[in-house]
Structures are given as C-alpha cells and as structure tokens.
C-alpha cells in the first residue's frame, strides 16, 4: 500500500482529503460523521464574531457542473460554537476553524476563541464573495490582509491558513500581502449567477452567488500552480475535486493537502474513502511512495 498521509503546516493528516468550509460543517455531529467517513480533517463553516441568519432561501441552485450558492455567512457567532467543535473533536481528528471578519480585531477575537476550543489551525476566509464589507472586500485589499495576518501571527499560536479568492485581478499581490500566513488555501468560489427564465429573475435571493464544483476545477488548478510556482509556500487545493484524478492533478500542481465541498453533494459522504482508494492505487502503479513525492511535480 502506498502511503497517503501528508503533513501540512506541521499538522499530520492520515490522508490529503479534508472537508471544505461551508458544506455540512455547522453541526458537530455532522462533522463527526464526515470524519468517520474518511475525511482526514474538517474545516468548519466560516464563523464570525456575532450571530448572522444569512440570506433567506433560495440560497443554493443546482447547475450543470456544480452549485451556485449565496448563504450569506449564516453562522451562530463564535461564542455559540464551542459545543459543535467539542462534538466534532470526539472523532479524534484535526478540526480547522474557518473564521471571517471585517477588521483585524474581529479576526483576532474569533481566532482566539477557535484556538481555545481546540482547533488545530485557523483558515482565514478572506474571500467570501457575497457579503458587503467582508469577504472579497477584505480579501481584495492587500493592506488590510497584511494587517489582519500580521496581527493574528503575533497573538495566535496555531498555524494560519489564508484562503484566497479567485475573484481578484492580481492574486499574486494578495498572496504577497498574506505571506506571513503558514499556508494558502486555493480557491474559494468563483463569482456567478443564474436566472430563472420563467420567473424572469435571479434564482438566488441575493441574485449574485459563488460557483463551486466541477465547473471551477480548472480555475483552481491554475491558481494552485501559479502560487506554488511563484511563492513555494504550502498549498491546500480546493475546487471541483470529485475523483482521484482531480485530486492528483491538484497535488501535481503543487497542493500538499486538499479540501472537498461540492463533491460531497454530488458523490455522497463516501467520496473521501473512494478517492483515497484511487489515490493509493495510482501511486502504486505510477511508482510514487508518498504524497510528498507528487507535490508540484508538474510545476515547471
């Protein structure tokens, strides 16, 4: 058997596949179930400082090649999230706390609490494209990104993963602003929208949404490759991973670990163990003895 474990920012993962933020990770029991189904870690739903109900439904649309969503950062607020992390931790695997905010102070408040709750790392959602004042607004402002990460780096001990948005003109500029982060997570959803032609209006209540799934895989591959090549930093690849071939493509583009979101919807919770099986047999037949041997091999 090929060895499929991997280490990202010092965190040992039994396999490269984690659950991505925002998909089945609001209730601790669900996170625990996903870990039992073979995910090596889960990234929580993005949590902010205060409770938010998010947009009213429709918040999601099934489209060819994936999903379009505008959930609106619904979250219970960090002070109400301790119990969910506690339940998820019962699975004995790493929990990564995804956090968002509008200011360095917000990030610090939420990040500190996540650290106390037992998160192994923080994933900074700098890229959520659909709430004014946070998300992309934050992630497309290099100075603010630098300030947030600088502040967190001083006061948080666990690793910081900066999740970047593909919805910027120059992603490299943002990556440079975020260079104090321990790793980059690429990519968040791509801006999109859908119109119902019989209702003659946008399907999502927020009109604009974020595209995920197969439709964005090749956008993700491109950014992972570019950022790996330009920065050499550890990368967590996410966007449209549904098969072991997709996973390997991301690893060869430079990802050390991966996250799956929409694939859980299209393939079910069994997707983690299925991909791991395929990954292991590919590595055996192609003569790779570890994930690390494959990371970035395609980068020229």
């Amino acid at each position: 058997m090929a060895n499929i474990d991997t280490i990202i920012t010092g965190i040992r993962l039994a396999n490269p596949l984690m659950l991505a933020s925002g998909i089945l990770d609001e209730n601790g029991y669900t996170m625990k179930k996903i870990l039992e189904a073979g995910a090596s870690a889960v990234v929580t739903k993005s949590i902010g400082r205060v409770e938010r109900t998010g947009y009213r439904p429709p918040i999601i649309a099934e489209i060819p090649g994936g999903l379009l969503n505008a959930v609106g950062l619904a979250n219970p607020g960090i002070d109400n999230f301790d119990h969910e992390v506690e339940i998820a931790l019962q699975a004995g695997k790493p929990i990564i706390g995804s956090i968002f905010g509008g200011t360095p102070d917000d990030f610090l408040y939420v990040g500190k609490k996540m650290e106390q709750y037992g998160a192994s790392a923080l994933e900074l959602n700098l890229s959520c494209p659909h709430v004014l004042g946070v998300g992309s607004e934050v992630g497309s402002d290099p100075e603010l990104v630098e300030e947030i990460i600088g502040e967190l780096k001083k006061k948080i001990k666990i690793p910081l993963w900066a999740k970047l948005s593909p919805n910027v003109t120059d992603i490299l500029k943002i990556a440079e602003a975020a260079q104090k982060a321990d790793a980059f997570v690429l990519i968040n959803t791509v801006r999109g929208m859908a119109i119902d032609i019989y209702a003659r209006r946008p399907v999502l209540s927020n009109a604009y949404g974020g595209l995920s799934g197969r439709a964005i895989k090749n956008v993700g591959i491109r950014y992972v490759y570019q950022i790996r090549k330009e920065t050499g930093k550890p990368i967590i690849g996410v966007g449209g991973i549904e098969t072991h071939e997709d996973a390997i493509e991301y690893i060869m583009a430079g990802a050390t670990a991966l996250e799956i979101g929409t694939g859980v919807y299209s393939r079910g919770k069994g997707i983690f163990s299925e991909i791991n099986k395929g990954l292991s047999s590919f590595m055996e037949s192609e003569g790779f003895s570890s994930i690390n041997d494959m990371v970035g091999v395609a980068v020229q």
Partner: protein
Amino acid sequence: MIHSIIERVDMETPTTVSILFPWDQDVLPGQFVMLWIPGVGEIPISLSHTGRIKGITVKKFGPTSTAITELKAGDRIFFRGPYGNTFRKTEGKTLIVGGGSGMAGLLPLITQESHGVVSARTKEELLFADRFSQEKLTIVTDDGSMGTKGFAVEGLKTLDLDEFSLMYICGPELMLKSILDYIADKEIDADFSLERHMKCGIGVCDSCSMDGLQLCTQGPVFPKSALLKSDEFGKERISISGKRVRL
C-alpha cells in the same frame, strides 16, 4: 427550477389549502419539494398527492407559506425535487398518526384498511380526517373541541396497538418524541417523518441535520430503531443561523 401551472386549489381547513398541478415525475410518499415563491422565499413542502396529478397541502404560517396559500388555479408554481426518502411498506394493517399539517405527507399512505389518529389544535384545523372511515378514526384536539382532549399520544392510548403491523407518524418533533417515548417498549414498529429547517434540500447546508444525518437526503423518514439511538431527536436542533437550540 421546475415549473407547472396550478390546476386546482382546494380549501382543506380555514388556514390550509391543497394545490394540485401536473408534473410528469415519479414521486414516493414521504418525499418533498423545495417550493419557491419568487421574491418571497423557498420552503420544503411534502407532497400530499403522489398520483398522476401532484399536490401539496400547505398551512399558512410564515411569509412563504402564506404566499403559497394565496395562489390560484392558473398561477405558475416553481419548485425543485422530489427530494428525500420514503416510508417502509407493510402487508398488515397500518396506523396513521398526523399532527396538524403533518397529515399532508401521510395522505398518500391512507388505504381502506388504515386507522387514523388525526390531531390538531382545534376541530377546525383537523386535516384529512374525512379520508378515514368513521370506525377507523380517532380524533384528538389540544383544546378538546372534538374527540379526545390533549396531544396525539392521548389518542394512541385509547387503541390496542397490537392490531397494527406498522405506524406512520408525521407532525411537530415534540409530538413525535412523545409518541416514541410511549411506544419505546412496545412491540409495534413505526416510521416517523420529521420536519426541521431546510435551507438547501440537497445535503449541503447542514441546517436540517440530526445525528450527522441530513433529513433532506437521508430522511425525512426514520424508523423507530434509529430514533431510539438518537442524540438529538426531540432534544436539540440547529437554528437558521447555526445555533444549537433546545426544541
């Protein structure tokens, strides 16, 4: 989104209507659709009519359900689905227990043989009681305006449950919980159809989850055996923001 033109609207109670529309799709009892009122909202609704003509039965409650009850024949409706699982089948006699608009999802299961326990807050709100024959009907109202006074479980206490091979139950979760507690040590088996918040209907948002299972894709129907082992059933759920709340 799927769309259809409403063929008929039936008033079932002063606050509840059935909306019938053509939809060329196989659907099973227990399944639901996410019904969209453009500009207002989208909510999960069980299919109350699963034959050639499909139907939903909706009680006026929030903004979206209220807008649904105001639809008329000829109006267009938008929805996606069908979603969810179905009930187990049985050869023997069935006992059908519905609380309030919970009777809607049970309507397709009613046969000549089935006995009904129909419960509601008041006699005006009793739904589909007329679909059972007189001698196979137990009525329960919270206010005692008709039948036994109290909650649905009080109706069960008047029956010999050994007569039935399977119970089908739908209604508010606390009603289901009181029934589960009552039958926990009894012989009778049961399928419970649950109602929780649903924001996506496709197993993504986690708003409907219980014990790590998604009501929208792995439910909404669960057997007695699963609920007896549950950590969250009848106790806690996640609110629309994601906050854990007591039921």
